[in-house]
């Protein structure tokens, strides 16, 4: 129960820090909104719904890389050392992942709302399934990017490494997500999407398990 207590405390710390500065959430929100507007102005004549779907996921992908990569890259060496003394590595990883998941859920929900508002014709017929896809996306992006950002931050030289290291890993997840979202846009019955949802859950469990195994080695300097 020590672990659960630590995790709870660390999440509280993350939320408190974010609440004080409101830098990440506002920054990413503005990023998403301006990207959606840029896309709207650039592709306004694009009529294809599936292209809008792909565009939405690309916007979310870049927003979440920027948002989640903050979690480890932002901390100074001193802060990391301080956390290392106070908490177990598993608690730190779990708290960061959970916090990032919450952050991404909030952001993607707002982004989806704004997207359907701006692109009126886009609104998928099965909004609930689309929202399930968005939630699965937030969870998968945070689990993968949290670990990759930990690796990138330890390697120094963060920003570029983060992109190179995470893209090949996230592509399988992204393909599944776009497929799932496409089912929602096409209005297919839910039975057709169980495969994708199951696969995404499996990938997430796999990612979290390997992260938990590997993070203690990474954390120690």
């Amino acid at each position, binding site marked *: 129960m020590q672990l659960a207590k630590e995790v709870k405390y660390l999440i509280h710390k993350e939320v408190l820090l974010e609440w004080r500065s409101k830098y990440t959430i506002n920054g990413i929100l503005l990023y998403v909104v301006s990207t959606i507007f840029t896309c709207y102005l650039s592709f306004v004549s694009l009529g294809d719904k599936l292209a809008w779907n792909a565009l939405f996921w690309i916007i979310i992908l870049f927003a979440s890389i920027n948002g989640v990569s903050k979690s480890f890259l932002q901390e100074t060496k001193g802060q990391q050392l301080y956390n290392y003394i106070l908490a177990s590595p598993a608690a730190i990883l779990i708290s960061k992942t959970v916090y990032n998941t919450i952050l991404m859920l909030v952001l993607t929900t707002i982004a989806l709302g704004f997207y359907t508002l701006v692109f009126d014709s886009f609104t998928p017929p099965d909004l609930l399934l689309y929202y399930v896809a968005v939630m699965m996306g937030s969870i998968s992006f945070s689990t993968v990017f949290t*670990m*990759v950002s930990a*690796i990138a931050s*330890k*390697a*120094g*030289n963060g920003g570029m*490494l983060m992109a*190179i*290291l995470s*893209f*090949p*890993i996230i*592509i*399988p997840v992204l*393909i*599944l997500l776009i*497929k799932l979202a496409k089912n929602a846009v096409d209005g297919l019955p839910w039975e057709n999407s169980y*495969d*994708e949802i199951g*696969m995404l859950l499996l*990938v997430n469990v*796999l*990612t979290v398990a*390997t*992260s938990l195994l*590997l993070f203690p*080695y*990474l954390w120690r*300097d």
Partner: protein
Amino acid sequence: MNKTWWKILGSVLVIYTAIAGLLMGVPRLPIINESIRNLYFHVPMWFAMIVLFSISVFYSIKSLSTKSEIDDIKAVESVNAGIVFGLLGLVTGAIWAKYTWGQFWSFDPKQNFAAISVLLYFAYLILRNAIDEEQKRAKISAIYNIFAFPMMVVLLFVLPRLKDSLHPGNGGNPGFNSYDLDSRMRMVFYPACLGWILIGYWVYTIRFRIRSIETKQQQN
């Protein structure tokens, strides 16, 4: 594996598949015709790549616990050798695709995913270049290697099954095994796989020995 018998076996098998693969009879099938002989060269590349990448993950896990430099060199050199096989697999596949599917890159899921998994290992090598300190480099790159490996397995073995592919055995296309990998082809195909895996392992051991001599020289 310091003995020489497996090196001789590997060379003999590869020479045998080169000769027998080009000369022995193959079933006549529409569209692929004689290009079916590429099966002996294209598919074994992927087997060799997978074996080399698995060796790399094994030594990455080992180097995390032993922290020895030798395990780290083994991990990186097997990736170096494996990437060459991956690129050869892509090239042989692209040439085959040109003459059977019509263009070099057909946006077939298996083609795309194979290319992505090669990118994954290029990212691994770039990560190594980004870190100067040796022990830190060994540790962080080993962690990335282990973290990326399950994703590569998902990319190469699970996702293609969910999508329609032009490759045999996917999306309603019958697999090679079911109707046309007859006994004549099996006589060449299985030795080819074993031979190329052995040659790949040999390349890796040579590269490992060169690198360990180089590091020894640098330390003196």
